[in-house]
């Protein structure tokens, strides 16, 4: 639905320009209030996080929630990076997330194409099998997986994380890609075949580009799902060398569980702002895709 149509169908007929402007502002007031409220509810915590990263430990414990920090140095950040090893955690998260994401998308695209576009007996069953994976609680497979990885001597490496993330993300990825691929008209593939394109060409040069929206949307969602995962990372990686940032944030604790709030918040702030940038970048692509998708061509 294009914005123009909506604009046309909701415009009101008012006589004078000034009255029209005033009336429009009044009409929009409740909506603006709602939007302002929503934005505050959503964005204030980011502000609170960043402010918190400048506070010292006693300030956290004794001062009220909304108080401003009493100093504006980067001590907490330094401590987080130097003593807390934040840099290594970020790197580990990246190394665990990006390959998992890439592999997941490629496997998922291939699987979706095979299940949705290609024609063969039993494809419906296999698709349902993937869908069933969405219903499985991950805790159920933790122990068997750990046993498998241990017996394959994979514990202590990054492989358990990557393999697990890929497998866990496949159901949703396959499902979404298949849904988007369903919308592609079959005639296009017929035409491509008549032009002499083999099945792999049809897959890579036709199907994949047409589901760009899905790739970016799924990529966005899965990126954060993996990046923010806590349980799998905690179970399969014990070594502090390979620890991801989420597990690392939990470990900003000193002797006997005294949480160092300052460095922890600094770590969180770095985490959030970093991923925010990635999010904004990917999100732009997704939004453009959604808008373009409205004008299907």
């Amino acid at each position, binding site marked *: 639905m294009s914005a123009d149509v909506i604009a046309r169908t909701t415009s009101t007929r008012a006589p004078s320009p000034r009255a029209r402007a005033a009336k429009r502002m009044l009409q929009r007031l409740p909506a603006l209030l709602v939007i302002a409220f929503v934005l505050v509810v959503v964005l204030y915590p980011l502000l609170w996080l960043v402010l918190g990263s400048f506070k010292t430990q006693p300030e956290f414990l004794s001062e009220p929630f909304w108080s401003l920090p009493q100093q504006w140095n980067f001590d907490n950040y330094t401590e987080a990076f130097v003593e807390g090893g934040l840099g290594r955690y970020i790197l580990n998260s990246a190394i665990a997330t990006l390959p998992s994401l890439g592999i997941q998308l490629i*496997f998922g695209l291939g699987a979706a194409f095979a299940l949705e576009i290609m024609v063969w007996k039993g494809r419906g069953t296999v698709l349902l099998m993937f869908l069933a994976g969405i219903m499985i609680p991950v805790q159920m497979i933790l122990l068997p997986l750990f046993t498998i990885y241990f017996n394959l001597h994979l514990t202590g490496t990054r492989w358990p994380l990557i393999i697990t993330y890929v497998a866990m993300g496949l159901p949703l990825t396959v499902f979404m890609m298949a849904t988007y691929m369903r919308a592609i008209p079959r005639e296009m593939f017929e035409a491509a075949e008549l032009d002499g394109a083999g099945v792999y060409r049809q897959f890579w040069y036709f199907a994949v580009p047409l589901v760009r929206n899905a790739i970016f949307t799924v990529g966005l969602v899965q990126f954060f799902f993996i990046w923010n995962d806590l349980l799998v990372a905690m179970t399969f990686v014990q070594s502090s060398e390979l620890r991801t940032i989420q597990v690392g944030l939990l470990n900003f604790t000193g002797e006997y569980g005294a949480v160092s709030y300052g460095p922890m918040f600094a770590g969180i702030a770095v985490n959030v702002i970093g991923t925010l940038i990635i999010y904004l970048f990917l999100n732009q692509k997704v939004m453009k895709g959604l808008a373009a998708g409205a004008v299907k061509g």
Partner: protein
Amino acid sequence: MHRTLGDPKAVLVLLGPALLVYTLVMLVPIFWSLGYTVMDGNALRGFEFVGFDNFARFFQDPTAMETLWFTVRYALVLTVLQVVVGYLLALLYVFVLRRSSSLVRTAVFFPVILPTVAVALLFQRMFELAPTVGPVNAVLDFLSLGSIDWLGESGTAFWVIIAMDVWRSMGFYAVLLYAGIVDIPDDVIESARMDGASGLRLVRSIVIPMSLPVLLSAIIFSVNGTLKVFDTVIALTNGGPGTSTTPLTVYMFRASFQYGSYGYGSTIALMLAILCLLVTLFIFRSSRRDLTKG
């Protein structure tokens, strides 16, 4: 068409890797875990076959029943709230903000990407009563309504968890449902308006029915996610006070890894999976649509 698109070797090449990883990493452990459900013990003690004892125990265990009830209550309330709030936001984006919705959409989506640890900390501080009074209690005091120990009682703790999850996920559902509403063809809307429909009537008779597929996908996705809540509860209340905010996933995790009864833990997991399946089937049936056929 069927010549190239029916090529079995190509199917294997394209589908194979995904299927292989999925089978080995998810399906095999699932069946393995099913095997555990009729055993008792753990990796250290060893396992012994106990038939259906674990299942009998599940239905007689008051804690299991309490967690089951909590899980269902939580999933129901949260799904409704998530989808409704998400839908309202999506309507806001489409009909009120129109072209300038991109910025707001992005901002509202932002909580989705925050790590659970951070959000839990935030909500704990927001609702706290001691040692310092958090904003929520401060507002209540201001209105002379008296402060509440939000996380200290199970009734109020439930609502704090719900609030946290709605805050975290409404942006996601808003975007998901927005995609569905945006797809409704212009001419349908326009002709409806020319027939005199506007506002609520328009939403009820045109927008909802036409965005139904996406709505249903969102509901199913939400239900499956909320039934398996784990991180949020652990980070915010750790299942407390006592076990009053413990969902099945946390109970299963504790049974397996803290109490050392993998058999029982796997049984709880199976119950949860069955619950997810039943609910999903129920939603399928009541909408009388088959998702795989679009």
